[in-house]
């Protein structure tokens, strides 16, 4: 189809799904993790949470679809990856459960202790997956121990290499900057200014860390053309940091998004045509061809994806348009949660 092998189309589509996931959930991870730093009082904390309130759940579906698409298009990849990265994914799952429930439940009881607990859950459960996705993708690119049956032979600790930890720090810091810029884009007044300053400070740390990771990736695993995406990722991050300080949040957010897109492109570009290289037995390496489903399945999936994806993009873009306005302090309504304790009077 279109002069591309079906397996390549699906490699591209899965790269696209992960890119969408990181760009979108990237900022809501960042916003969640910075809740404690940015939200100085309850009104501001609610403003921070409400910038992503209507959006985070739709963002997370990009992950579900990326997982489902990997299962359908490259079952061997899905099987080796998910069983191999077992404990890392367990932690990610616990975090995603925690933050999802925390967003929904934090305002359900009008009590400071209740809210503080859920805030801690939001902060921790946003930061941890932001870090772990970088660790996971650095490992995917660098390769992991797989035997000839494509079974993972390492442990959780095997995944914690210096390169992978640098990858984790990169996604964490870039998502934090992305999230801080998003808050400055969606709020006004003092909170907006604090988000500027925070984005700037985090950016100064993120630039060298992400730069180091990108250069390492390029030198160890990159292709000729990934130099372009490496340069773009690094340049966009520097640009974002410069612009956010001047109040150009729209452009700054576009540039942090470009950084994430270009970084993901670098990772998938370096990986291709492998999908999970083996660091121990070359026969264990999974590629777009030996991990793939049959052409019949890939063909059906391609048509479904072509028909449905544009519609999804259109309505998700519309939902961003509906909630485009900045949130002021006056926008936050009175708390509607239940009183802290059960009423004493019973019928």
């Amino acid at each position: 189809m279109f002069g591309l092998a079906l397996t390549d189309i699906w490699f591209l589509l899965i790269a696209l799904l992960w890119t969408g996931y990181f760009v979108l959930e990237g900022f809501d991870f960042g916003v969640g993790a910075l809740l404690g730093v940015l939200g100085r009082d309850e009104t501001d904390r609610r403003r921070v949470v409400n910038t992503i309130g209507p959006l985070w759940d739709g963002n997370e579906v990009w992950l579900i679809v990326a997982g489902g698409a990997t299962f359908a298009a490259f079952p061997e990849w899905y099987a080796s990856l998910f069983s191999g990265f077992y404990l890392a994914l367990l932690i990610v799952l616990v975090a995603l459960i925690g933050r999802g429930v925390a967003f929904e439940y934090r305002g359900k009881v009008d009590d400071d202790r209740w809210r503080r607990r859920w805030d801690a859950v939001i902060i921790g459960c946003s930061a941890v997956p932001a870090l772990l996705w970088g660790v996971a993708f650095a490992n995917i690119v660098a390769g992991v121990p797989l035997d000839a049956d494509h079974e993972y032979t390492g442990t959780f600790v095997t995944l914690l290499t210096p390169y992978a930890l640098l990858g984790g720090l990169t996604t964490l810091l870039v998502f934090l900057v992305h999230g801080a810029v998003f808050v400055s884009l969606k709020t006004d007044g003092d909170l907006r200014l604090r988000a500027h300053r925070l984005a700037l400070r985090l950016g100064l740390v993120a630039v060298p860390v992400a730069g180091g990771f990108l250069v390492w990736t390029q030198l160890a695993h990159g292709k000729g053309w990934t130099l372009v995406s490496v340069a773009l990722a690094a340049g966009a991050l520097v640009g974002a940091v410069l612009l956010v300080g001047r109040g150009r949040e729209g452009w700054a957010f576009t540039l942090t998004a470009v950084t994430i897109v270009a970084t993901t492109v670098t990772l998938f570009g370096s990986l291709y045509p492998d999908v999970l290289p083996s660091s121990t037995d070359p026969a264990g390496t999974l590629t777009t061809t030996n991990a793939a489903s049959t052409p019949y399945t890939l063909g059906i999936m391609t048509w479904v994806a072509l028909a449905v994806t544009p519609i999804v993009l259109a309505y998700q873009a519309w939902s961003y348009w509906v909630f485009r306005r900045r949130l002021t302090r006056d926008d936050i309504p009175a708390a509607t949660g239940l009183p802290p304790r059960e009423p004493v009077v019973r019928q």
Partner: protein
Amino acid sequence: MALDLARWQFGVITVYHFLFVPLTIGLSLLVAMMQTAWVRTGDERWLRMTKFWGKLFLINFAMGVVTGIVQEFQFGMNWSDYSRFVGDIFGAPLAIEGLLAFFLESTFLGLWIFGWGRLSPRVHLATIWLAAIGTVLSAYFILAANSWMQHPVGSVVNPVTGRAELTDFGAVLTNSTAVGAFTHTITAAFLSAGMFMLGISAWHLARKNETRVFRSSLRMALVTVLVAGVGVVVTGDLQAKLMTEQQPMKMAAAEALWTTSSPASFSLFTIGSLDGSQEVWSVRVPKVLSFMATGDPEGTVEGINDVQRDSEARFGPGDYTPNVPIAYWTFRVMVGFGALALLVALAGAWLQRGGRVPASRWFTYAALAGIGFPVVANSVGWIFTEMGRQPWVVYGTLRTADGVSPSVGPASVATSMIVFTLLYGVLAVVEVTLLVRYARKGPDPLPPPDEAAPSEDAPRPLAVAY
């Protein structure tokens, strides 16, 4: 060891997830109907119902969403050999479920929750309908995937790779098993949501709280339960006949029928020997099993020993019999609790005749307990469906023991088992507490109408926010 733990984990995680799913499906559609009634009539009662039941729906929905992510991940995590074997077929409906259903559900639910006051009433109404359609679509695709495991169609096993391959996707989507499972699940979802509304409405009516709102809610609940109940019975009957034909062992195990019988009786209650292979005492209704399984009161129903012998001839030596006492009792508990739910609804329908308000104490207790009846029936129904298929994970094609992840040791599975059990336990307490407290609180008063449209720059907070 890892196999047993992985099976336990699948059971715990899936049953837990399915505590929330039927309520999500049923309530999303019922809330959409309430809001439609409000937009059509402008009667504030419907608006208050939409907001009250909508809030309970959202508390429940959050749990369904977050526990659903685990469902998708655990195939690869605990069942990697299963995933390798079935990915060509099983992955497609899963991916399509995400693309077609989950995006719809999540995006439009976000728009619905936060769209009050920002979207026009009609557009806002459309968002809840689209979210509700998303929940129904997701049910279809996941049940098509599960039904392929019960009755693998449209596929062959490639002798070279040793994997199942898709040959006809249309056959997977139109699998008779999927049609049976989908209609049974959706009607059961409405029954669950109806009983949920019935219990809470009865409790408030007994206290004379918000009688106008809760009388309408009660009537809506009763109609839902009675219509859905008929649907559950009809589709359950359809499924029993499909099961007899497609998985005779499961039907035989459901009755603990060891030898082929024509006609076969149905036992309401049996005390058997410890291994379940000998009957000590039972209460039986003649010919009912034959009728349930074949539609003919004199029909022949195959017994476990005969299916076991046939299976050995087809698949080689081995034990092809599921855990019979579990199949036998889960089947009865499912049917029994479904019937109990219908009885409560029938009593409610009688008590509210001619505009009466059902206020008797026993009915209130029965209706409150009735919230749990479909929850029990749904859970044991799935335990029956999945355990009755054993030792197969894909019926007649792949054994459960051959599906488990070879690279994941018992320590890892035990770790995740403990983590999920603790986390789910804590969340269950939080969720039920919130549901109970919000349900007791009743509907909120409507905010005072905006008098004399405030000027553009006057502060006007959002109608809804976290």
